[in-house]
């Protein structure tokens, strides 16, 4: 008997230890995600934000959650607080559900659900409109368990009071109030009290909508607080799975928790939790690298941006743009850019969600190209929909500083100064390149221009600029457009502005290619390095050998990548994204 008990306790300890280690590991590898969570999570100090959240059910918990999300500025601190809440959930849950011995391990499952909910978002992180999402579910669930614990400590005849209380706290706890009523009702044998509880549960949202929230849509009151992943154009069901499972498991534990004091339960729960988290967690190297690049770019740490870009095998479009800005600031854009790579890969995502440079880093990119009005506009469009988070407030401050709007800088920095980790934040001095590029941009009226090709086209038109950095950018982006009519004037202006300087490698490559491809065009004669010219001839030879009926462009690109992936020619034939003719990788090669 003693031995069985010891084995049982041993299995419980080992299972807990394994699960805790797993949680710690998952939290550790998601540090960058948590930093981004704080950067994209809105918490505005003061009455307007507080009242806005409190005007909706579950708003108070969201407010608390939004405040706590600020702690993710130090990801370890935020993750630590989150883990502490989960530890409390484990403890309070085992008391509330009266889980004895090995049965207590059942509480690992709600924790696994909550852990999953913060690591399965993927690109939703950039477009999430749910305030305080990162902590609110954990805080709400803990509050629900505390209520359940207290309720179950009172005599059974008082339960009717608790059902009514659950109804009363619906504006605070939202769907957790309903879960509380349901859990309390199912742990006991059905009597008239439980029937009253269930009736209250069914009509809670309706009554509150009539009584108090009549200025809201009924949809927004029903199941208040239960995260729904919906935007005007996208929706996801997979990100809601952890919450439905959380609710289901809570009811299951209420129903049969007392029968689960078996030695095998901890091991099963631990394994189930690990499998659940692992299967739903969003895993993608580019996703994390992109976050790191944005973080470094925000701090103008272009060296680190370049380091990450250099290591990336198939960078996303956002990464390509940030890398090129880094090269503009660190030097070597026309010598290194195509070596590192300019072919932007699509993001990977488990659902139909479309997220692009626009949501990830567009204000940052426009700012660094001196396109200040566009940066401000996009910043507003994004912040207004997704929340005035630190990322956007910092960008607003920087744009205002670049425009010389001191009062506006003060407004945004004042808001940031209420953040626990931005108390002394000031926008960095506007870089010389940004100032210069701002001057390169003449005023005109445009429509709604949000695409990344707008940046490419706009910058490529700076071909008459008498600003050095603008002439370099114009040449580079005319090369990205694969447009010889843009290329020649840009090259002329670049050489004029960089008189006496070297003829950069990629510019030579483009020069050789355009001379070869469009000999009829009015061009200039410039000496190029023999080695580069010979390599181009070799490239053409290989390409002509690869072209066979039935062979796709994608296949040829794959085979030539190893040898020529670092050249402009490779981009021109296989990677062009911003020219008028778009090559499909699956289409057959035309001779």
């Amino acid at each position: 008997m003693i031995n069985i008990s010891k084995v049982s306790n041993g299995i419980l300890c080992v299972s807990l230890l394994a699960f805790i280690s797993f949680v710690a590991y998952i939290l550790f590898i998601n540090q960058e995600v948590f930093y981004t969570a704080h950067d994209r999570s809105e918490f505005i100090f003061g009455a307007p934000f507080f009242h806005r959240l409190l005007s909706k059910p579950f708003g108070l918990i969201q407010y608390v959650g939004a405040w706590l999300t600020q702690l993710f500025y130090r990801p370890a601190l935020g993750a630590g607080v989150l883990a502490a809440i989960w530890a409390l959930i484990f403890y309070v849950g085992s008391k509330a559900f009266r889980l004895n011995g090995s049965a207590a391990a059942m509480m690992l499952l709600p924790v696994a659900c909550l852990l999953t909910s913060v690591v399965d978002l993927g690109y939703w992180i950039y477009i999430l409109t749910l305030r305080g999402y990162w902590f609110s579910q954990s805080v709400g669930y803990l509050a629900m368990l505390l209520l359940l614990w207290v309720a179950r400590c009172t005599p059974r005849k008082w339960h009717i009071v608790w059902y009514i209380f659950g109804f009363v706290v619906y504006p605070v706890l939202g769907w957790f109030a309903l879960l509380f009523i349901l859990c309390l009702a199912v742990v006991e044998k059905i009597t008239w009290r439980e029937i009253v509880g269930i009736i209250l549960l069914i009509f809670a949202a309706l009554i509150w909508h009539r009584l108090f929230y009549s200025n809201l849509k009924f949809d927004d009151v029903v199941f208040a607080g239960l995260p729904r992943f919906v935007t005007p154009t996208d929706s996801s069901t997979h990100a809601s799975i952890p919450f439905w499972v959380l609710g289901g498991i809570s009811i299951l534990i209420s129903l049969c928790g007392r029968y689960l004091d078996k030695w095998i339960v901890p091991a099963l729960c631990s394994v189930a939790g690990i499998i659940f988290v692992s299967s739903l967690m969003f895993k993608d190297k580019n996703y994390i690298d992109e976050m790191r690049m944005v973080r470094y770019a925000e701090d103008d740490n272009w060296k680190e941006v370049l380091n990450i870009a250099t290591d990336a095998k198939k960078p996303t479009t956002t990464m390509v743009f940030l890398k090129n800005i880094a090269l503009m600031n660190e030097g070597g854009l026309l010598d290194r850019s195509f070596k590192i790579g300019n072919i932007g890969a699509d993001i990977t995502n488990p659902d139909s969600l479309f997220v692009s440079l626009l949501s990830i880093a567009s204000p940052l990119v426009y700012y660094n190209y001196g396109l200040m009005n566009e940066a401000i506009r996009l910043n507003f469009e994004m912040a207004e929909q997704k929340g005035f988070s630190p990322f956007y407030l910092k960008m607003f401050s920087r744009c205002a500083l670049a425009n010389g709007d001191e009062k506006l800088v003060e407004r945004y920095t004042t808001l940031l100064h209420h953040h626990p980790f931005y108390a002394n934040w000031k926008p960095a001095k506007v870089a010389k390149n940004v100032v210069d590029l701002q001057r390169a941009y003449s005023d005109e009226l445009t429509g709604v221009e949000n695409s990344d090709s707008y940046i490419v086209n706009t910058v490529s038109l700076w071909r008459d600029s008498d600003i050095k950095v603008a002439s370099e950018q114009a040449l580079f982006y005319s090369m990205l457009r694969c447009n010889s009519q843009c290329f020649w004037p840009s090259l002329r202006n670049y050489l004029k502005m960089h008189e006496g300087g070297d003829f950069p490698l990629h510019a030579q490559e483009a020069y050789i290619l355009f001379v070869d491809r469009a000999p009829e065009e009015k061009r200039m004669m410039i000496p190029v390095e023999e080695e580069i010219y010979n390599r181009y001839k070799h490239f053409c030879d290989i390409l002509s050998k690869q072209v066979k009926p039935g062979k796709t462009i994608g296949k040829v690109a794959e085979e030539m990548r190893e040898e020529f992936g670092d050249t402009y020619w490779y981009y021109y034939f296989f990677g062009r994204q911003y020219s008028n003719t778009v090559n499909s990788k699956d289409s057959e090669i035309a001779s």
Partner: protein
Amino acid sequence: MFGVLLLLSSCVSHPDVPSASKDAKCQPDIFPDYCDVTVPCNIAPLNFMLLKDKFDECVARFTTADGKQQTYGDGVKVQIPEDEWHDMLDASKGKSIKVEVWGKKKGEWLSFKPFEIRVAKEPIDEYLSYRLIEPTYVAWSFMEIAQRNLTSFEETQIFNNEITMNDRAKGQCINCHSYQNYKTDNMLFHVRLSNGGTVIVNDGKVSRVNMKRDYTISGGVYPAWHPTAKLIAFSTNLTRQAFHTSNDNKIEVYDLASDMILYDVTTDSVTIVSNDPELLEVYPTWSPDGKYLYYCKSVPLPEEMRDKDIRTTYPKVQYNLYRRSFDLATHNFGDEELVYDAASSDKSVTLPRISPDGRYLLFAQGQYGCFHSRHRDADIVCIPMDKFSGSALTIEASSYVDLSSLNSKGESDSYPSWSSNGHWIMCASRRDDGNYSRVYFSYFNNGKVEKAFLMPQEDPEYNTFLLKSYNRPEFMVEPVKISVDEFSKVFDR
């Protein structure tokens, strides 16, 4: 617990005046700037603060006309309980409240030169409504039309753009709330895109109408209720916006076409008032007696520009102010009269409003265009109507009333209006930071205008925390009594 918290939060700090202080030899730099302003005798407390990064503490002593004194100060903020403030106003009606301010900086108190708050005998209309919206461009999410009690800090929602939205991809926009004679039994606002229509309240009854007819270019846009009849003049507009790539104004809003219509609420009929195909008519407003309809109309573009894209011609689109007489019995309009010729001075006039006594005309004036809330050069202009004798007034007429104490320097001042007693001018101004528009009031008496002051808030920092603009502020003498829920029901029908 909650009660204790409430009790604590309602405690007012009446600090002692510093026993020793250094003379700052200047008035305090307070936000909002309430130094030497004239305020209505029923306005909410003028709470203010010293700048946080310059001071650690603030104490203010208020001395009313009857000699009573009270001190306030909590950190750098001065927040006065409503009842105490209204007692002060009552005691100083027609006179002044003296305000002495001390600021603590690095452990040392500075005493500033006192300033006065003059309390006018004339009250301000008790309510104000506005749309709260981010100063955004294309995208938006939540917006609301709200009403504020100006004698307190109470703000409630009139309508929001979520409750009736049935198509998320389309979104919903709400705008152009308007009232008949400052009262709310006859009012309207527009709902655009998803579940769109114009919500009209007619003697307290709510309905939704579609004003688009096959002979109009759009449904009703900018409205003006006739002061006595159930008639609403609207402009109909094909409005577009475009964005400056490198200009402080950032946004241009312009009309490709605009006409004017008259909507009869009783018969649900729409008649054309003017529809010149070459010119743009916009911003109708009635004279207080209902006998004239004032409106803005563009002047013809120079010949060489007529066929060009408006994106290149926009700086040359300028509006003058016109009026037409109106016969209420026949609903007929008389001939057009040019009231104010702005274009001859290379200016453009928008948003006219006649004072309730009919003696003064307010409008917003900038160099070009019809959307001055985005033009940094836009200012409010006031013209005495007795100067208009049938021949057009010109820019010289704008010097008869000095509005320099109302207008800001270098930031947009737009959307002027009169209080119902004609003693308070209100405008929406972006003067605080060039981006977020706020409501400013000025006292007006026989053509004299006092220094403008910002609409007071319970927490003076509220204006910093609120990331929304006050759009289309309109005075009301009573609140809108219909709830959001009741309004939303007309969308179910």
